[in-house]
């Protein structure tokens, strides 16, 4: 009967989809920050990594806060994040067993060319207190990411608590590129890692509506590290694959690739593995 053929057809589709969906290969699962993904760095490195090691690299790009949480729950094998103080605490709490610094760039404060708060050329601490005093729009990631953690730290360094409910303080809860777009729309200031900013400039054909106004100083350094999870906490993670990735990232080839990753002639990250 027609009915039977219909039902059998539905079942056949289901079984084939289920089989297709459950094919497993040797793959390393990584949680990383939006900046490494949004800039295109991982799309550039991953095929090389696979070619050299035979390991497929899969990643989910989330804020550093969520990446650390995914590691805590053993849902990934390895982390590539950028919040050194939080990372050190993470190791002390027994969630990760080792941390390897692989590259860095720096944070900058960007704003409209008109610079309504007049912060160009100031130090970070002064610039932030001027923005706070004048109540000019400042857009924050507000997502507990590495960038957001750093920004809150800088507000404290500038004297006084990090802003929260102030009318001029906008928390987007989104990734860095999104936040840059929102900042441009609002004509405000924000803090970004340089890599993402260069990507953003590239998207606007080298003439972005936001300019770098504040830069320089050790305090603005943005260090990226590979974290290998603690196998006592997470016995099921693929530690060997994670170690292979960590070693490969610190190796000469990857370090050279990172140094060569450029947009508009500018390097987005500086390798610094030891």
């Amino acid at each position, binding site marked *: 009967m*027609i*009915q039977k053929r*219909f039902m059998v057809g*539905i*079942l056949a*589709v*289901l079984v084939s*989809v*289920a089989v*297709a*969906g*459950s094919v497993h290969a040797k793959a390393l*699962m990584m949680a990383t920050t*939006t900046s490494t993904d*949004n800039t295109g760095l991982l*799309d550039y490195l991953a095929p090389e990594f696979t070619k050299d090691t035979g390991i497929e690299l*899969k*990643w*989910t*790009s989330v804020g550093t806060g969520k990446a650390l949480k995914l590691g*805590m*729950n*053993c*849902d990934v094998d390895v982390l590539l994040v950028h919040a050194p103080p939080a990372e050190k605490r993470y190791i002390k709490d027994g969630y990760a067993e080792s941390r390897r610094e692989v590259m860095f760039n720096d944070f900058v404060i960007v704003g409209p060319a008109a610079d309504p708060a007049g912060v160009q050329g100031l130090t970070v601490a002064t610039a932030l207190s001027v923005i706070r005093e004048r109540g000019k729009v400042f857009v924050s990631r507000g997502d507990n990411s590495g960038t957001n953690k750093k920004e809150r730290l800088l507000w404290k360094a500038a004297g006084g608590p990090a802003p929260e409910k102030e009318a001029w303080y906008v928390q987007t809860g*989104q*990734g860095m*590129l*999104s936040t*840059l*777009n929102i900042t441009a729309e609002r004509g405000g200031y924000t803090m970004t890692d340089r890599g993402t900013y260069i*990507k*953003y400039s590239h*998207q606007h054909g080298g003439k972005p509506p936001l300019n770098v106004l504040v830069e320089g100083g050790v305090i603005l350094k943005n260090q990226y590290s590979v974290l290998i999870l603690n196998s006592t906490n*997470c016995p*099921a993670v693929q530690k060997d694959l994670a170690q292979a990735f960590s070693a490969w990232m610190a190796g000469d080839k990857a370090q050279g690739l990172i140094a060569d990753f450029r947009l508009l002639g500018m390097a987005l990250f500086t390798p610094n593995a030891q």
Partner: protein
Amino acid sequence: MDFIVDGFFRALVLLIHGDPQTLSAVATTLKAASLSIGISLIMGVPAGFCLGYYEFRGKKTARIIVDTMLALPTVFIGLLVYAFLSNRGPLGGWGLLFTIPAISVGQTILALPVITALTASTLDSLDQDLRLTLISLGANKRQLFFTTLWEVRYGIVAAAMTAMGRVMTEVGISMMVGGNIKWHTRTITTAIALETGKGMFAEGIALGLVLLAIALVVNVSVSVFRR
């Protein structure tokens, strides 16, 4: 507003040239959606049948529960499924997190109430004389069930289409338990979220149009099947 026009042309280019990333996202979307719709049909049609066809104690309460489930927010389902499938969760051992079946589990929770509720209301509005006619023509209980199901086939197809629309357009679950992993669990909607996040609005619009094109193809083929 150039990116709207741009997006339209990008959509044509993506589709005509068969951009591999787009095709991968389309395939992932379709795999996850058909798996979840299939499971939802297997579970939801009999459940909806019982809910719409039979009279029993607690039927009203069951209907209220199902109708309430229609309002489940996708991010909440995503969170719930994540909590279960996380390696720290009760079903962590299955190793499903960040896979297409994981997305399907969440989407099944999304689609099941839709299919159950719509099947139930289709059967609710069914002519009482159908049952009478089938029994009087000599149907046994099994034949009664299957013929009734066949009589409401268009209603069930409509329910599946509605659920399909809901499942293919959701982003919360795919993002949360799929992880938006390129070549693996990146669906059209998570790709749109990603492109938008990167400020690539034209790409986002192109992908949205691709999703719309798929919906069109599915609906056209269904209307052909109905004829």
